[in-house]
Structure formats: structure tokens, C-alpha cells
């Protein structure tokens, strides 16, 4: 096997962080490849409208942003590989990255930008009724519940944004939240509170999703009174946060308790030559604006590392 690294830098993950790392690496003259298992944009492609990414005063769809980021990375020579990285093996002054297709990539440094995936509630009925009324994508599946009653679980930005979207299609949207106030941005809260079709079930934890061939309701328990009830719904959309996709690098780099990759200010992980950027990293704020900033730093830091090898 050829011991020479075919790439200088491999970026694992093709969301905003990964595409930006590819862009900076390409511009810096590195031979860079971005490995993405599904589609450019990652989770962002699933966001109907992004209103807080600077430079787009009217907002931009997640899909459009992803397309633009990919085109920009490609313009500077980053290669886009549709495949899944299944591991990382450190070698002297390089890494090998085996792919699901059985191909093996080799590079001098890595940027892990694998992002995060929607958290499951982990309650009975959730897995059994997936695709039968349980959904993690309102823009994808909302149309199946036109004129019907649905529930949204969660109280963050995604939950409230999607509740507002669903209220445009469904007769009634109940937001089930385990606290007595929302974490979502003030502007989103306002939109939700003044929408007549959206109601709120506060201080409720979900104990099960009910139904057999399709969802019929969400079983909840009041955290104060302990009273158990079923909120009728033919669809339930779950937005209870995200878990980091750190498994590919998990055994090589330091993780926090929740599985996020721990980095220093230069996005360096505990393993020399491996950098991390975006939602997979331990940090306070998980926004696209932050992810692309991480990625610019990670790519430049990786370039310094490569030049000093």
C-alpha cells in the first residue's frame, strides 16, 4: 500500500463546519477532501429558514446555504467524497481513514466536523412508530398531518420554529415542554404565543407515544402534580436537542461527559493532528455562525501543524 498521504487534510462531515474547513484548506493550498455520508449541509439542510446567519438579511433556506457553501469549497479545490468514515487509525505523521465503501483515505491531519444528531426521547412507542407519526423533520412530514392535531416535544429554537411551521398546516399544535418557560429565542416565542393554533402543555414529561398502526397521542406526566394524561395527536415531532456524532474519533480524543470533543482555542483535540469544529465540539453556543468560525480556525491550525511536520 502507498504510504504517501494522498491528501494533506481530510475533513469528516459535510455540514457548514466541514464545508468551511474544506474551503479554508483549499484556499490555503492544501489537498483537502470532505467526507460526507448523506448530503452537503448535514442538519442545516433540514432547516427551512435560517434568520440568524450574518449576511442574509432576508434569511436563507438551509438547503440554499449548504449549496452555496459546497460550491465555494469546490471553487478552491476541496474534493467532496460521498461516503461514510468508519474509523481513524493514527500512523507515523499521518492518519488512515477507512470508509464504508472499503476504500481507505490517508492524510496528514484531520478535522472532525461530524456535527450532532437529533436526540431521541427514549420512551416506549418512539422507535416503533417512527415513520408512522413519529418524526424528527416537520418540513418533511408535516404534509401528512394537514388539518389534524399534532404535538411538538421540546422548548428550544428548533421545537418552536417547527411548531410555528406546523401551525400553518395542522388544525392544532400542542407544544409539550418539561419546563414552565421556553428556551427558544424571544422572537420565536412571540410568534408561537400569538398563534391561535398553538397551545402549550407546560411542566410535562413524555412517558410514552401511544398508538399501534399510527400515533394516536402522547402520554405525559405533570412534573408538579404527577397527574398522567394523553394528549391526542396523530403526529408527534420531537425536538429535544442533539447528541454529538463523536464516535468516529471517540477512542482517540478527549470527550466531555456528553460525548462532545474537547478542544483548545485553536480547535486542537487531545490528539496531535486531529482538530474538531462545529456542533461535535464542546462549547456553549451551537449556531452556524459559530461552526464556520470554528472551522476557519481548525483549517488554519491544521495547516500550521502540517507545515511543521
Amino acid at each position, binding site marked *: 500500500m502507498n504510504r504517501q498521504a494522498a491528501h494533506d487534510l481530510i475533513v469528516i462531515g459535510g455540514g457548514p463546519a466541514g464545508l468551511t474547513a474544506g474551503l479554508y484548506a483549499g484556499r490555503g493550498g492544501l489537498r483537502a477532501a470532505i467526507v460526507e455520508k448523506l448530503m452537503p449541509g448535514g442538519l442545516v439542510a433540514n432547516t427551512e429558514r435560517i434568520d440568524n446567519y450574518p449576511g442574509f438579511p432576508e434569511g436563507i433556506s438551509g438547503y440554499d446555504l449548504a449549496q452555496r457553501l459546497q460550491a465555494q469549497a469546490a471553487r478552491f479545490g476541496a474534493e467532496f467524497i460521498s461516503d461514510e468514515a468508519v474509523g481513524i487509525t493514527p500512523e507515523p505523521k499521518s492518519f488512515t481513514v477507512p470508509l464504508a465503501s472499503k476504500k481507505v483515505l490517508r492524510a496528514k491531519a484531520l478535522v472532525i466536523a461530524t456535527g450532532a444528531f437529533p436526540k431521541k426521547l427514549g420512551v416506549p412507542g418512539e422507535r416503533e412508530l417512527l415513520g408512522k407519526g413519529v418524526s424528527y423533520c416537520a418540513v418533511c412530514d408535516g404534509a*401528512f398531518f394537514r388539518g389534524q392535531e399534532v404535538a411538538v416535544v421540546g422548548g428550544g429554537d428548533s421545537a418552536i420554529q417547527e411548531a410555528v411551521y406546523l401551525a400553518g398546516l395542522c388544525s392544532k399544535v400542542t407544544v409539550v415542554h418539561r419546563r414552565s418557560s421556553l428556551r427558544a429565542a424571544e422572537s420565536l416565542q412571540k410568534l408561537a404565543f400569538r398563534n391561535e393554533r398553538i397551545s402549550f402543555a407546560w411542566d410535562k414529561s413524555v412517558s410514552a407515544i401511544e398508538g399501534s398502526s399510527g400515533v394516536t397521542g402522547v402520554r405525559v406526566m405533570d412534573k408538579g402534580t404527577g397527574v398522567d394524561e394523553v394528549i391526542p395527536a396523530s403526529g408527534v415531532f420531537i425536538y429535544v436537542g442533539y447528541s454529538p456524532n463523536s464516535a468516529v474519533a471517540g477512542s482517540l480524543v478527549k470527550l466531555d461527559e456528553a460525548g462532545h470533543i474537547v478542544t483548545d482555542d485553536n480547535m486542537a483535540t487531545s490528539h496531535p493532528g486531529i482538530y474538531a469544529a462545529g456542533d461535535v465540539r464542546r462549547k456553549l453556543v451551537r449556531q452556524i455562525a459559530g461552526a464556520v468560525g470554528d472551522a476557519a480556525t481548525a483549517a488554519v491550525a491544521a495547516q500550521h501543524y502540517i507545515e511543521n511536520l
Partner: protein
Amino acid sequence: MALLKDEDRQKLVEEFGQKLASPVKLAFFTQNLDCMYCGPTEMILKELAPLSDKITLETWNFVNDKTQAELYGIDKIPAVAVIGAKDHGVRFYGIPAGYEFASLVASIIDVSRGETGLSQESKDVLMSLSKPVNIQVFVTPTCPYCQSMVRLAHQAAVESDLVTAHMVESTEFPHLAQRYGVMGVPKTVINETASLDGAVPEHVFMHHLQEAGKQL
């Protein structure tokens, strides 16, 4: 009213100019009554076809032009058959709008070239098939993940003469959505026997195709 922005139209002209090889025919099946999305689908095709002299649009009436409908196996409308040097079995049932417009553009290019960007491993799987495989990918036009499954299905059809692949817009064909229990997309039905919820990577898709091919 033009559906495509000037900027996008220009990009498509360039892309088709660079990538199209052999001529491609879009065989469009429509009717005047009881087809809410036939008109909008026609508008999309009428804007797309003139962007390259390699693309021709043929419009057939689903009721009156029975011979053509049978030739391409069309059983519901609106329908678009993307035909290249041969019929690879690439079909779009329902409007190719939203994210699926990108699927249509990509499939026109693949059909024109008679080859795709699938990996060698995937092509090997497709070569090993010995029985016909039909893939139906249920989508909604607002589903960002659906496109990746439609692409894989259509690419498989272009690479293998045994594979036919249909995009099916779920909300336009509720009886099919009901028959296959579609309440979430993408949902991929292979040979009526196997189904796959959600978007999966290429190697997983090929594995399911291989398994479904064996069960016949």
C-alpha cells in the same frame, strides 16, 4: 411568470452545456381535468427543456395517448419519463418541484451520460443483480433528505438494466401513501416487499437493494 430565476437559468445552461452528452427526451404525461399538479409540472418542464438543445419535451395525454403511456408503463399522472439513448426506467410521479427539481436536473444529466457517480462497489452490487428490481421513493417537495434517496434510486436505474426507479410525490397519490403506510419521508419501497425509512448512505442503500433482489 417565470419559475426559474435568471441567475439559476444561466447556471443550468452552463451545467447542461458542460455535462450533457447524448440527447435526452422528457416524456411528460398529463390530462386537463382532475390533475391539480399537471399544469405546474408542465410549466417547470417548459422552462427546463429549452435550456439545452439536447433536451426535448414530448407531451402526451394520459387518456388519449394510451399507446405511449403503455410504452413507458405510466399508470398515474403527472408523470415524467426521462429517456436517453435507451429507457433506463427513470420516472418522476408527481411534481418535480422544491428539492426534487434538483433530482430532475441531476437525473437528466445521468441519463444523458448513461453513467453515474456511484462508487465501483455500488456498481458491482448492481452488476450482480439477476432479477428485476423496482424502487419507489416516496417524497414531499419540502423534504431536504428525500433528494438523496431519489438520486440513489435513479442512479441505480441508470447503471442497471434490471432496476427501475420512481420518485413518488406522496401528497399527490394518497392511495399509494396509504397502501405503503407512508407517514414520513423519505420512504423507499423496493419490489413491494422491503421498505426503508429515512435517508441512508449509498452503501446501506445498495445492501438493501441486494437483499430485496434475493427475495424475489
